[in-house]
């Protein structure tokens, strides 16, 4: 009976000490790696010892470095009667997983905070590493179109967005205002 008790005690010790001992031995040159995943160490500039796992982080870092702003395709289409406009953008998903762009909506305002119209996109799912066309649509007044056209020619848009709502992959971001939305690159 005592032998059984001793055997079970030894088994308990072996079960605990074995994996922990192996882990310490495996990371003997980098003990911090026991607590921080090698993937995060490589992100922070350190060197992870586990090459198999660090590949997933390098994928993320590569994906982020490959991120590019959506590129405008052609020229915006505008219906002078209704004020509706349509402007497609090309976007490449840099990630290893599909990205769902569920919502983008905003109010367009001019330099003096006057309302020019509104913009929104149709929801789109873009597969891993795939290209997708994001269709920006909305309604703008004729004066807003004239202003946008002149600013577009100059290379910078001096209009702002208010009440911006973006939903990407289920994460919703509400931004009260985005001033001077910047330049547009026309690839068309």
């Amino acid at each position: 009976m005592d032998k059984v008790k001793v055997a079970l005690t030894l088994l308990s010790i072996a079960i605990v000490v074995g994996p922990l001992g192996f882990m310490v031995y495996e990371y003997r040159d980098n003990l911090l790696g026991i607590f921080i995943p090698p993937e995060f160490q490589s992100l922070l500039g350190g060197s992870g010892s586990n090459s198999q796992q660090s590949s997933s982080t390098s994928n993320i870092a590569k994906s982020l470095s490959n991120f590019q702003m959506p590129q405008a395709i052609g020229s915006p289409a505008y219906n002078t009667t209704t004020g509706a406009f349509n402007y497609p953008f090309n976007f490449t998903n840099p990630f290893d997983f599909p990205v769902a762009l569920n919502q983008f909506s905003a109010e367009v305002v001019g330099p003096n905070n006057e309302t020019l119209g509104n913009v929104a996109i149709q929801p789109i799912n873009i597969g891993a590493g795939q290209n997708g066309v994001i269709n920006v649509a909305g309604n703008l007044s004729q004066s807003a179109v004239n202003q946008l056209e002149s600013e577009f020619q100059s290379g910078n848009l001096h209009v702002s967005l208010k009440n911006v709502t973006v939903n990407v992959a289920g994460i919703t971001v509400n931004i009260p205002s985005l001033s001077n939305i910047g330049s547009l690159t026309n690839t068309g």
Partner: protein
Amino acid sequence: MVRKINWFGLVAGIVTLVMLVLSLYMPWWQLTIGQNLVKINASPVYMNFGFFGSQFTIPLIWALNVITILTFTACGLLMLIYSLAPTKPYAKQLLQFSYRKPLYTLVAFVVILVAVVLGLRYFGVSFPLNGSTTLTLPSNWTLGTTVSALVSGYFELPFWFAIAAAALCLGARIYHGHILQPLIKPEATANPTATAATESLS
């Protein structure tokens, strides 16, 4: 003579091993933020974090997971051995080794999970233990913008198996006393005072 079997122990051993196999493929509790943007698989057997489609494991937690796998394997097998021979001299040692650990692991898992969820709630981040909610990050974290996401937390099948295994292990411990009872001789259990009183009355 009919062979004694601790049926609770037998089922407990089987359920423990089934729970272990299930836990290798499914977490006990899963938290999902957004549309699989962030995924946390919590389990004493296999815990990992999914972020932007990639899985991460902390090496120390991996080692603790291996310890739990080995512990559950030993507990399940020893519980089966005990159950088939509960009257052997070594049976009690096997039972004492194997019945407590699934219960302790389950209690520790629930306590840590609840502590983490309550701790995050203190900082204004509220995750559901079982269900879905919209999580809004505190405004002082997000520089004037409002960031919100659908957050789902669910207990998975292995968790319910773990509860069943722990309950059956306790049942095996209680039933062990019933198995041994007929083996104890009446002389040993009789109250000497009561016996003497009966004799004097007769």
